């Protein structure tokens, strides 16, 4: 009997306290003249690449008098990002820039955000076209693919076997680049003598990336080039090749600070050169997009332009391959033995 009373009591108290906290709904903090709040949701915490994006984003917003909210997901999953974005909607932020862990999973929550009047844009890794107004693309997919294909061709010396070590089979970016590389190689005769023998996934874990690289080397003794378009994978692969003093060389996309020990000329180094864009600039571009959206200068339609003062460029929004729109930061940048010392301290 007493138990029933207790249970009932508990329920009442719980309901009351929930109600109590909601009776005084605060008005949206500040009017239009107040400081605007710009949110950024990176892919995960504890990753220097993401951190540099955030850094660039913060720099521009704060220089222009805005307030920045960084909401890190607990894990590198779309589920965790949904939680973050939900919380940001509650906080009535003015814009959300998101580097998506999954292209589709954020659609419901981002649509809700847009309905609540929040400007939504993507950066680094896109959400699908229905869940964004526009997207800050680090470098055109074709440009990245072109740069990587040419690097593979040059390092291989015009012919031979090559392989890919990617992050995971579900990484949107990686797949887009890999597909574009395959298309490009099929369409141009100069790549005809190159043979893509295998695509392996290292799940962005050093252990697994190491194992799959070793497997590639023993399965294909004549392998000439490995292309790893992922930061963890390229570092792990570079270490394997360098330690084994393998004749197989490496290129791909990586962080200069992580790769500095492997980039160099000659047999002592495993990576002659590799590419990346500047994540700080990408964060800055995303900040400019967010501000232009919030200020109503752009709506995210193709053809609109906005000025990115700090980057010294006026950007134009263009149509993206997925049917949405995007803004392309620029060309991928090559890190060579000549410039790596200079860049490794920056990011």
């Amino acid at each position, binding site marked *: 009997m007493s138990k029933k009373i207790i249970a009932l009591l508990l329920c009442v108290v719980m309901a009351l306290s929930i109600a109590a906290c909601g009776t005084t709904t605060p008005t949206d903090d500040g009017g239009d003249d107040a400081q605007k709040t710009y949110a950024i949701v990176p892919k*995960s*915490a*504890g*990753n*220097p690449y*993401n*951190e540099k994006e955030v850094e660039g984003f913060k720099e521009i917003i704060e220089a222009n008098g805005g307030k920045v909210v960084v909401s890190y997901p607990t894990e590198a999953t779309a589920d965790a990002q949904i939680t973050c974005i939900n919380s940001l909607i509650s906080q009535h932020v003015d814009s959300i820039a998101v580097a998506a862990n999954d292209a589709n999973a954020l659609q419901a929550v981002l649509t809700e955000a847009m309905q609540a009047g929040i400007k939504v844009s993507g950066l680094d890794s896109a959400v699908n076209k229905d869940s964004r107004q526009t997207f800050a693309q680090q470098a055109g997919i074709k440009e990245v693919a072109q740069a990587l294909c040419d690097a593979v061709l040059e390092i291989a010396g015009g012919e031979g076997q090559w392989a890919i070590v990617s992050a995971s*089979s579900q990484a949107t970016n990686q797949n887009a680049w890999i597909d574009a590389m395959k298309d490009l190689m099929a369409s141009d005769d100069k790549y005809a003598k190159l043979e893509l023998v295998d*695509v*392996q*996934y290292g799940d962005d*874990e*050093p*252990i697994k990336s*190491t*194992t*799959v690289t*070793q*497997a*590639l080397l*023993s*399965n294909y003794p004549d392998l000439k080039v490995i292309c790893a378009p992922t930061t*963890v994978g390229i*570092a*792990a692969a*570079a*270490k394997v090749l360098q*330690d084994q003093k393998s004749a197989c060389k490496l290129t791909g996309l990586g*962080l200069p*600070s*992580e*790769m*500095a*020990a*492997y980039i160099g000329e000659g047999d002592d180094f495993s990576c002659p050169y590799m590419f990346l864009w500047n994540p700080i600039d990408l964060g800055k571009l995303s900040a400019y997009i967010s501000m232009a959206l919030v200020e109503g200068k752009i709506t995210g339609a193709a053809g609109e332009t906005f000025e990115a003062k700090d980057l010294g460029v006026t950007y134009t929004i263009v149509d993206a391959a997925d049917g949405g729109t995007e803004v392309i930061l620029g060309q991928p940048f090559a890190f060579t033995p000549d410039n790596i010392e200079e860049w*490794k301290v920056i990011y």
Partner: protein
Amino acid sequence: MKKNFRELSLVIVLVLLVGAVSIKNPSFLSLGNFAEILKNNAVTMILALGMLCVLLVGGIDISVASTMALSGMSVGLLFKFNIISSTPLGFLIGIAIGAVCGLLIGVIVGYGKVAPIIATMGGMYIFRSLAYVISDSQWAGADALRHFPNFALGSFLGINNCVWIVIACYIIFFVVLKWTKFGRNIYAVGSNPIAAEISGINVAQVKLCVYTIMGTLAGLGGVLATTIYASAMPSMQLGSEMDVIAACVIGGVSMSGGRGSVIGALLGSLILAVIGKALPLVGISAIAQNTVKGLLIVVVILVNVITQRAMKKRSLERREM
């Protein structure tokens, strides 16, 4: 006799696995390849020893991966910011950090009487987030670690330094568990804690020691992982506690305590290591590798159980005669 048979069945499984992979891919059967397997899995193999002790006293530790991240990340950052530059000192600091983590868990489990899975689950969250907090979103890559990764490249008498550490750990644990009072106490506590308490063993103290040992090994593992892969990141070794537990269980270590041996842990982690190494080698499509790994683990464990059942039945029959 019975015990040896169980280990023999594991050896057979291991040989069959190696044989099957070698038929599919002859390059598997080379000395260099086995050296790679040992080096790649040095961390899991060492942690399996600690987990063996923890499981022997009837506990479990799912915080080890986080402890590794904390110790590896700390040492990585110390090198990155030029605070230390001596490799042995790096090892010492990492091991000490691990030992403190283990000690904490040990006190909570041993004296606070908190169920091991809860205490270590808490530890898993706490240590991992500490690793994130101290990292300040930075990694320590090959360049930042400077000469530290050279340790994992060096070798002594033709055997890699990391493998030497594994060998040393296995010899020490084999001796301690088999021939010392402490080793016998561990088995006693796991088989029957009440009886052990009555017969004068300080159960709480034994548990404290066991978890501290586990933490110490995790600290060592974290540093080793940093030197082997020349990188320290806060997310390192995520989920590897399950590999370690799986290695022990494959090796016939009982999760209810009191049963298991160093040889079993060795064989279990070797089987797991061979599976991990073989999957990309035998041309199983990348997408199916996780499933096949899971299936193989389950099958190996089930085969182990079934042979044990058959053995029991046979020994019962013999007794009836």
